[in-house]
C-alpha cells in the first residue's frame, strides 16, 4: 500500500489554496480493521489527507524545491464520520508562509457538507530552527506521490 491519502488534486491556486478529493471505498483494507462492524475512514487519515493537500500547496510556493513536512496539528475537529461510498473534499488555504514554515487552514467536506476543520503547520526542513541537516535530495516531492498527483495536475490532466 502506498501512502496516498488523496486520490486527486483538483484545484491549485498558487500561494492561496488547494483542493483535493478522496473517495472512500470498501475495497480499502484499512476500513476492514477500522472497524469490522462499522467500517469508516478514520479522522487521523483525513488529517493526513489535508496535510498532503496542504503540503502540495506549500511546496508549490518554492516550486517544490523545499522539503515540506507536517510539523503541527494546530486544530482538528470533526462532526461526522466518512463511510464507504462517501467522497471527501479537502479545501486548504495558505494563511502564512515564511522561510522556515507555513500555516494552513483546512475544511473537510463529505459529499459537499462540511464535517471538519483541520489547521496545520508545515516546516521547511532545511530551514528548521533546530539546525538539523537533512539529505540534499528532496525526498518529499519525489517518487510516485509527485508523479501521480502533482505532475498530472500541472500538466492539466487531472480535471476530468
Amino acid at each position: 500500500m502506498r501512502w496516498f491519502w488523496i486520490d486527486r488534486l483538483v484545484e491549485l491556486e498558487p500561494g492561496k489554496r488547494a483542493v483535493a478529493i478522496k473517495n472512500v471505498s470498501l475495497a480499502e483494507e484499512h476500513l476492514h480493521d477500522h472497524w469490522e462492524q462499522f467500517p469508516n475512514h478514520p479522522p487521523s487519515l483525513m488529517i493526513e489527507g489535508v496535510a498532503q493537500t496542504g503540503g502540495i500547496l506549500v511546496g508549490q510556493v518554492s516550486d517544490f524545491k523545499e522539503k515540506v513536512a507536517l510539523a503541527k496539528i494546530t486544530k482538528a475537529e470533526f462532526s461526522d464520520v466518512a463511510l464507504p461510498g462517501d467522497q471527501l473534499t479537502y479545501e486548504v488555504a495558505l494563511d502564512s508562509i515564511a522561510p522556515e514554515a507555513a500555516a494552513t487552514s483546512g475544511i473537510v467536506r463529505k459529499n459537499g457538507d462540511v464535517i471538519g476543520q483541520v489547521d496545520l503547520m508545515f516546516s521547511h526542513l532545511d530551514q528548521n530552527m533546530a539546525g538539523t541537516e537533512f539529505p540534499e535530495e528532496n525526498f518529499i516531492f519525489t517518487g510516485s506521490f509527485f508523479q501521480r498527483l502533482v505532475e498530472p495536475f500541472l500538466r492539466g490532466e487531472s480535471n476530468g
Partner: protein
Amino acid sequence: MPMTETDVFEKVRETLVDALGLDDDEVTPEATLTGDLGAESIDFLDIVFRLEKTFDIKIPRGELFPDNILNNPEFVQDGKLTDTGLAQLKERMPHADFSDFEKDPDINKMAELFKVQTIVNYVVTKVA
C-alpha cells in the same frame, strides 16, 4: 484610539490559547512559553504568524524571539552567556525582563525570558 496594554494582553492571551490549545486562565503575564505553557519550536512560528494577523503587524525574523545567539562562541562559554552575549541579547530583546536571568545567564534558563509579558511588551511597541 490606541490599544492599551490590557487590550494587547487580552489579544495575546487569545492568540496563545489558540496556538497552544490552552485554557484562558493558564495564560498569565508571568507564564513562560516553554516551561509553563508547553510551547515547542514550531509553536514560536505559529505564534509569530498569529500575532502578525491579529495585530496587523510585521514581525521580522529573529526580532521577537532572537536567533543566532546560542550558536555563536563569542556569546556563549561554558553553558553561560558571556558579557558580550548578554549585552547583545539585551539589545535585541528590549521587550524582555532580564532582572532574574542576568544574575546567572545559564543558557538553559534562557527560555525563562520568553514570558507572556515579553510578547505583550513587544506588541505594545509595534502597535504604539
